[in-house]
């Protein structure tokens, strides 16, 4: 039982980060139809900028705030300089643009910072809590609470504020949204900013546990994309469920089966789910207009 709990804790912690990355994918996809493969770089930026500004003597909360602002600026710049000029291009062209952006950001990070691994001190000490015989790091609790708070804040933003509703309206029908006076370009820009912020927060929260480096974004983007697809691309609830599922699958298969095949189990399950439910867990049958 203690073992089971231990795996569940670590799975939920990693899964919460995947969920945040998947949420970032979902937001941008909903507003613009773009699959943003640079999403992982926002997480990397959040971690790396915090580490380096903190090392330069800035107190941790302020360093985190700076990292958040940097990521948002990068997100907005990505939209303004790379996505908006290519408006009307095919989805696969846009994907290659975001892959180019992710290579660029990784190159920029290895140059501005360095190529080694970095960590942050845990935000609330490193004395583990013992629950049912399993050790839970305070930082894991912070990751889970932080991710939960972000999800709730996002839900509030999307359903209770005018800007958030504009994002939902644009996602539902771009043309109709424009007809009722929504500036859809600004909305897409906003979604890039919010996605960058969510990614950066995830990066800041996870760095004390998982370390960060200039190239840590690639794997996260891959897992986050898989999680978003598992929960049906475009569905925020699906993104969260998908992220937690992938995290738990990884932790349990690493614990009970084999750590070298942990990703294999996660992807086998994803393949299995997609065979049974081709639109993902929360998908509805789509229609194609001929």
């Amino acid at each position: 039982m203690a073992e089971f709990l231990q795996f569940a804790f670590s799975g939920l912690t990693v899964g919460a980060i995947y969920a945040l990355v998947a949420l970032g994918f979902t937001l941008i996809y909903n507003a613009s139809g773009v699959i943003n493969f640079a999403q992982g770089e926002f997480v990397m930026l959040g971690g790396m900028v915090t580490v380096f500004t903190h090392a330069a003597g800035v107190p941790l909360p302020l360093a985190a705030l700076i990292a958040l602002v940097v990521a948002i600026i990068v997100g907005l710049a990505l939209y303004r300089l790379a996505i908006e000029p290519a408006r009307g291009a095919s989805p696969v062209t846009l994907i290659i643009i975001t892959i180019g952006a992710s290579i660029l950001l990784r190159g920029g990070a290895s140059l501005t910072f360095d190529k080694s691994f970095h960590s942050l001190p845990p935000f609330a000490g490193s004395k583990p809590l013992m629950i049912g015989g399993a050790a839970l790091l305070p930082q894991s609790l912070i990751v889970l609470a932080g991710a939960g708070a972000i999800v709730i804040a996002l839900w509030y933003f999307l359903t209770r504020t005018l800007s958030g509703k504009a994002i939902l309206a644009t996602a539902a029908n771009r043309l109709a949204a424009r007809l009722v006076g929504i500036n859809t370009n600004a909305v897409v820009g906003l979604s890039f900013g919010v996605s960058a912020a969510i990614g950066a927060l995830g990066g800041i929260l996870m760095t004390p546990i998982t370390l960060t480096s200039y190239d840590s974004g690639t794997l996260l983007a891959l897992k986050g994309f898989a999680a978003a697809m598992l929960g049906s691309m475009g569905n925020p609830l699906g993104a969260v469920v998908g992220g937690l599922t992938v995290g738990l699958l990884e932790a349990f298969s690493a614990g009970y089966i084999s750590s070298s095949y942990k990703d294999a189990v996660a992807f086998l399950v994803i393949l299995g789910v997609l065979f049974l439910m081709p639109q993902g867990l929360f998908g509805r049958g789509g229609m194609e207009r001929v």
Partner: protein
Amino acid sequence: MRRFLEGPYAGVLALAILVAVLPLALPSLFYLRIAALIGIFALVVVGLNLLIGYAGQVSLGHAGFFGVGAYAVAIGPTYLGLPAWLALIAGAAIAGLIAFLVGRPILRLRGHYLAVATLGMGLLFAMVFANESAWTGGPDGMPVPHLDLFGFRMSGARTWYWISGVSLVIGAWVAANVIASPTGRALRAIHDSETAAQVLGIDVARYKLIAFVLSAVYAAVAGAYLAMFDGLVTPETAGFLRSIEFVTMAVLGGLGSTFGGIVGAALLVLLPQVLTVFQDYEHIALGLIMIVVMIFLPAGIVPSLAGLLRWRRS
């Protein structure tokens, strides 16, 4: 004459001439080596173009098939005592068979769901290569024996330039045949709209599967070539980044254009060589070039430039 020039075979002929003449223009073996690499990667992209450019199905896992070919020529001769050429054929056949078996269920998925499923498939291959160290040498990879044909040893840049060049011409010729056939028309119909194609009586699943299997075989042959050329194979051969590289080559050069695929492969093989002069700025430059090309030539280099030329003329 005019009909021939506008048909699919004119390009193949031009390619054959280019392959035959290029060595005269290349000053040293170093360039010949790079040309051979371009030929090998272009072979993958020509196959992948059938799947992505014509059938409209994006795969993020083709490095898996590339890896199957590469490991076949490593494992076959080393552990099973097969001659290298037979291992190559076996590798291509196995990749085709896997694509056939996996393709049926996977190709039911559409759009990004297909992308994530192929991505998962590619990762599974890469993980098997990295973890079954008794057969594959694990993360460090394993050496690949030379290819011996008719008592001659196939090694060195010059030999491999000709092998990859001739294979590329044959590959482009086969692709041109497929594109000009009813299969090609069916694939284009599927690209435009799966539902509409189905309504017209096209067996969508069958044609998508044909494109998938063909592209897998192209990838496996090219993978085997690269492994024998390098004399070494590692799990990165089949990695996610390789798959992304293939798709990038196809899209940068131009989907739905065989020449585009070759230009895309040439660009992504050459750029890292050229960009080394920028040292630390290499990745920044590569990313920037990808973004700028896609913004200004959204249909890919070859189709966009050809369109521009036609527009200028009229």
